[in-house]
């Protein structure tokens, strides 16, 4: 198998626990927090972080999903993408601290699209970014506030994030370009 596993299930769980504590610490508690996951795997991660927050500070695990397909700048460079639902919590996002959650931070273009989408949905007090993996190679001036693991990669490599809810197991793996050829 050419893919090299870099995070196991326990590593992912520890990273998400630490991110959850960091979110509460930065926000000075769990009030007025809204976690928005970016489909598909960001939503699963947001739900796991929300479950953690709920455990640490009951009442703080408010979660939703934010689809950014219609805000992408590369729609005419890929086959047609099917959008996923956007679900906002009942209270909306006005005046809240929104934490965007995604699996991998790469070029930053998905987050740029997410910021545009948020602008059309309301006016949060602040927007933060939490990612499980930061693999570098940014093309925009965007950085994450909460990072599970920094993974220096080559552009030719691919990162696979697998989560139990979708893929049946938890793992983060790197597939090298050499591996792809062999």
């Amino acid at each position, binding site marked *: 198998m050419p893919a090299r596993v870099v995070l196991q299930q326990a590593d992912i769980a520890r990273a998400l626990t630490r991110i959850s504590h960091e979110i509460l610490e930065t926000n000075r508690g769990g009030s007025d927090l809204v976690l928005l996951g970016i489909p598909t795997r960001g939503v699963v991660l947001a739900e796991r972080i929300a479950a953690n927050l709920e455990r640490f500070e009951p009442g703080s695990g408010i979660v939703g999903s934010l*689809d950014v397909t*219609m*805000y992408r700048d590369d729609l*005419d460079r890929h*086959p047609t993408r099917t959008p996923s639902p956007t679900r906002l919590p009942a209270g909306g996002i006005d005046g809240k601290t929104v934490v965007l959650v995604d699996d991998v931070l790469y070029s930053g273009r998905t987050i740029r699209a997410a910021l545009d989408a948020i*602008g*059309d949905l*309301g006016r949060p007090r602040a927007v933060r970014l939490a990612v499980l993996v930061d693999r570098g190679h940014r093309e925009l001036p965007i950085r994450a506030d909460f990072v599970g693991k920094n993974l220096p990669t080559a552009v030719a490599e691919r990162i696979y994030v697998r989560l139990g809810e979708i893929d049946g197991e938890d793992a983060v793996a790197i597939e090298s370009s050499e591996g792809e050829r062999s």
Partner: protein
Amino acid sequence: MRHLLTTETLTRADALAILDVAEDMAEVATRAVPKLPTLRGRTVANVFFEDSTRTRLSFETAAKRLSADVVTFSAKGSSVSKGESLKDTTQTLAAMGVDAMVLRHSASGAAEVLAASDWIDAAVVNAGDGTHQHPTQALLDAFTLRKSLHGDASRGRDLDGVRVTIVGDVLHSRVARSNVWLLATLGAHVHLVGPRTLLPVGVETWPVTTGTDLDEAIAARPDAVMMLRVQQERMHAAYFPHEREYSNVWGLGDDRLDRLPADTIVMHPGPMNRGLEISARAADSPRSVILDQVANGVSIRMAVLYLVLSGSDPREAAA
């Protein structure tokens, strides 16, 4: 999806994909800013050789919600009266830079001719061709049906086992033809009711059952009754003796409305002839979803415009 011309060749997966994207588009309408930047810089031309209120406005609204630019052509007051052909008219528009053409034409097959020709590069969306097809109307009807049955849990659902009765002027109706194929593809059972003279020749080859008795059809407790407009502008012969008789025998009057099961919905593609195929009370009753159909039409057309205008151009990829 390169063009949308007919529902007859649409697969169940394609149809469900359009309906599901429309669910997301419907959600946009509820936002503080009901607008998406998706089609910024694209131009949609509404090319209407035949009159229309809701379809033209619906496509225009849909295109604007996706930030596309809209140009509108209507045959009335244009060079068509000087004898300009479909080819020349569409090529003139294409020369001004158009990415999608929404075409309505009185000739059946006009959209197919335009799409198959090498006259233009733009995507073609059929907005009604003669008595042939009106695919976005059928899609919005299927969307409305699904929504009334499953509410917010509609995503991904088909119409298996749903029974729809379509009543009236099937002969002249592109809405009926589009619906018959789409609803059958989605698993619904379609029953056509109307005077023999207004059921087309060859209807026995369609995936439907037919009848002439509306009361019998209502007694069979359908999930939806779709009343068709009596298209007097296309009638050049006497298809029924008198309007009053048509209304008595095939109209959805107050007494038939009261005999419908409590959860049966009433649909009409519009424009309505109140008092002819549908009574005012039926049209305005709580079970009427006619205005929902109009609202859902915008979501469906947003989905269709997104699907034909996004994605890498297959011709470029092949090059």
